[in-house]
């Protein structure tokens, strides 16, 4: 099966080279063949996909198609889908069927895109390796002994292994960018408030943001245009017009100022990854980009600040999973307390429990000021670092992760080393900025990701810079197809 981008599929459908039903079948077959090895999907929605594809073909025949009509895609299993199970990677929601669609899903449905299935993820989006999924870890197609990254690992695997042309993900501390880097695809985390969070099961509400994962920056532009926009059901979504991202891709980069934060190239970064990033930056210089050393002095406090804020919010967000109205309920509870304790003890995995407990602790009387309030202050310092940096440069560049994909099981006993995976991605969430990870080479046959960070609502510029890079490199065209 040849690799096709969303752009290729749009053109093929428009020109009648193939029908939506044909390509949908191809992807579904491919998933059937290799998903047992990769575990990218928690469930596929074959019947619905084919019905949607048929409808799409009818619309295309009538000349009534929209940009994503008939385009197959996969959704992270954190987006609620009406009538179709939404598990969030947890035993807690193993049998949960939402009675409504997330806004993001509605937007794709409105364009008659085709949903192939729901992708694997770390439980409740908590994790950087996908190993925290109740449904088993997804495998990195470049080396199935390695993790794909997380939490949107299933989506990254599905795109990298050509099981879908595109997928949605969510990013709270790096959950789109880190798996995109590990799997050699392009993943965009938009500005906080750019994409509606309605129907996207909350992990840390002030940090969560949905975004596109695809092979190319161009595809991400096409997808973001469909996903973005104000939603009256999400008070934190912004009343800001959605630009025509595709139209902005072709700007030349000459004169663009790119900042390299010294903190992102310091100790802890694999020197070979550093070399890959250096080469990517050289490539940008060839395109006329001016490179400048900058500093983000508060980077070192990002991880502790993040984990306090995220865990505090998650401890409250996950309180609704109490076994009373939906989700897992223990057998034969003897009383209310037993119902709560056992339903939650059985329904949640270890990492989720760890974060709920730490979060509840940081919010409790006597600790709130020392932890939560302090973390919010640090968050402002981190935002200020970026604001100052963007006075001098247009974009910030660096590695997405300190290293390439690691072996499954390598870090499961050491949460802190796992948390350090997000050292370059987390500040972006704390500040609410947009950032993109794009393929930038290989170390030991495993992909390296280059991260570009932009100012608020500068997705156009990020996609433009990523697109121009991909016009001059072929890292994003490398295939990790796995044979059955």
């Amino acid at each position: 099966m040849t690799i096709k981008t969303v752009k290729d599929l749009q053109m093929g459908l428009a020109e009648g080279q193939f029908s939506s039903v044909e390509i949908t079948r191809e992807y579904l077959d491919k998933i059937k063949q290799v998903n047992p090895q990769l575990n990218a999907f928690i469930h596929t929605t074959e019947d619905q996909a084919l019905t949607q594809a048929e409808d799409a073909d009818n619309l295309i025949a009538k000349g009534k198609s929209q940009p994503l009509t008939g385009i197959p895609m996969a959704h992270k299993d954190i987006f609620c889908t009406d009538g179709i199970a939404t598990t969030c990677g947890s035993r807690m929601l193993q049998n949960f069927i939402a009675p409504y669609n997330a806004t993001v899903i509605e937007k794709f449905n409105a364009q008659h895109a085709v949903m192939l299935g729901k992708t694997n993820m770390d439980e409740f989006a908590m994790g950087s390796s996908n190993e925290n999924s109740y449904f088993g870890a997804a495998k990195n197609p470049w080396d199935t002994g390695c993790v794909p990254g997380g939490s949107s690992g299933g989506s990254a695997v599905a795109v990298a292994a050509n099981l879908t042309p595109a997928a949605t993900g969510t990013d709270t501390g790096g959950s789109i960018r880190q798996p995109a880097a590990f799997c050699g695809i392009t993943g965009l985390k938009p500005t906080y408030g750019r994409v509606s969070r309605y129907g996207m099961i909350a992990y840390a509400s002030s940090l969560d943001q949905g975004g596109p994962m695809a092979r190319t920056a161009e595809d991400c532009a096409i997808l973001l245009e469909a996903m973005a926009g104000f939603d009256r059901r999400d008070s934190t979504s912004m009343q800001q017009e959605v630009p025509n991202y595709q139209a902005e891709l072709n700007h030349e980069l000459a004169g663009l100022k790119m900042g390299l934060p010294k903190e992102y190239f310091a100790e802890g970064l694999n020197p070979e990854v550093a070399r890959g990033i250096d080469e990517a930056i050289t490539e940008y210089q060839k395109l006329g980009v001016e490179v400048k050393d900058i500093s983000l002095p508060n980077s070192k406090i990002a991880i502790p600040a993040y984990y306090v804020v995220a865990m505090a919010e998650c401890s409250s967000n996950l309180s609704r999973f109490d076994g009373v109205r939906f989700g897992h309920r223990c057998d034969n509870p003897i009383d209310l307390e037993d119902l709560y304790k056992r339903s939650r003890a059985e329904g949640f995995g270890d990492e989720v429990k760890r974060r709920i407990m730490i979060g509840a602790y940081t919010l409790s009387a006597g600790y709130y000021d020392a932890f939560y309030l302090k973390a919010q202050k640090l968050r402002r310092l981190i935002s200020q670092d970026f604001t100052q940096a963007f006075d001098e440069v247009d974009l910030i560049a660096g590695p997405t992760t300190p290293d390439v994909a690691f072996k499954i099981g390598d870090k499961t006993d050491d949460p802190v080393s796992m948390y350090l995976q997000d050292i370059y991605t987390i500040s972006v969430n704390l500040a609410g900025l947009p950032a993109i990870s794009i393929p930038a080479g290989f170390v030991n046959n495993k992909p390296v990701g280059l991260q570009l960070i932009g100012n608020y609502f500068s997705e156009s510029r990020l996609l433009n810079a990523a697109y121009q890079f991909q016009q001059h490199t072929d890292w994003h065209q490398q295939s990790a197809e796995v044979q059955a």
Partner: protein
Amino acid sequence: MKWETVIGLEIHAQLATHSKIFSGASTAFGAEPNTQACAVDLGLPGVLPVLNSEVVNMAIKFGVAVNAHIAHESVFARKNYFYPDLPKGYQISQYELPIVGEGQITITPEEGISKVIGITRAHLEEDAGKSLHDQFTDQTGIDLNRAGTPLLEIVSEPDLRSAKEAVAYARKIHSLVQFLNICDGNMQEGSFRCDANVSVRPQGEEKLGTRAELKNINSFRFLERAINFEIERQIDLIEDGGEVVQETRLYDADKNETRSMRSKEEANDYRYFPDPDLLPVRISADDIQHIRDTLPELPEQKRQRYVEELNLSEYNADLLSGSRDIADYFETALAEAPDLASVLANWILGDLTGALNKSEMAFTESPVSPQQLAGLLKRISDHTISGKIAKDVFEAMWNGEGDADDIIERKGLKQITDTGAIEKMIDEVIANNPDQVEQFRAGKEKVLGFFVGQIMKQSKGKANPGQVNQLLRDKLKS
């Protein structure tokens, strides 16, 4: 030892919006369980709250009416605790930055005595659902219709010194929120609920005693009783060498006692923090001014107007402006009979209030409409009937026999003002009672009353009393 009581009230006023505070579901009372709870009210995964802006306007109205500081930026916070009728495992409330800050209100616990009570704050929050414990054996039912209903929690300073003052304060707030049109005030349906923090301390002591929080009080009568019971309990306890513990106590109206519900040791740590799903509420000075300019007339303004423009007594003005229902009744009637303010006041606060109390009815349920009452009083004022006959007509109206004019016409109650007819009756009475005539002529003025009585009897009360008096005098003296 002499003891001083210190009371602060926490009042939950349900805001009279059509839809809930963070969702579009209806707030109507009494629907089938769980039929008025949408995905947001159920706390389904992925849903988000969106603030109903109407509740903000209502809170500002209250704040302006009690001269409180309105926060230019206020924040919703999550109050975290587990309970089956709390769907999200947290209640969205306000903690550090409430919408309404310090204010005050003047109460009149007794005629002629007024006292200013401080209001600490008022904040917006969502109500929880209801747990139904007695409808299923060994199981608890949960009705989430009420979940997400908007509440304004009004917290007073510990300025109240007796159950009587507490009731006067609660009534004042109750009346105010109804005047403002922000709460229907229905205590039976739980639209207006009071919790009382009660403590005692030796007279002259500055330090506050340990307080108990009294819950589950759904009428002003019970509020007074619960507080009085609690004061006595605490004093007895201390005088017997015991110590008051800080706890929540439930009032049992059947037994007229308070019972411990949970003590402080078991108290929750609510882990409040700003709700990241909601933006801070920003209110401009213009918003506040606009609401101030469009505020309905408040009880205090009404009272003043009644005294100054309608020449009512302070006492009557106070009573008529004391509740929205009475004031509305009075003003509707007044619109029909603009010159009869004083008579209307007397009838509303006298005969009508008496009849309503006797039948345990509210002003809104009165069988005699304000228009009907005004119609009756107009007939007194134009001498169609006497005040005495008016009482009979009122009773007939109360029994649903129609408007005053119909009744007067049908029953032939029209006052006799024909001088000839009255003279005829007088002549007859004089002729039949020669002894009494003698007595009067001998200077015994009191006997005049006897003659008036006889004539009124003969005319079945319809003779104009003024005319009867005048004509009698003339005849007897001649």
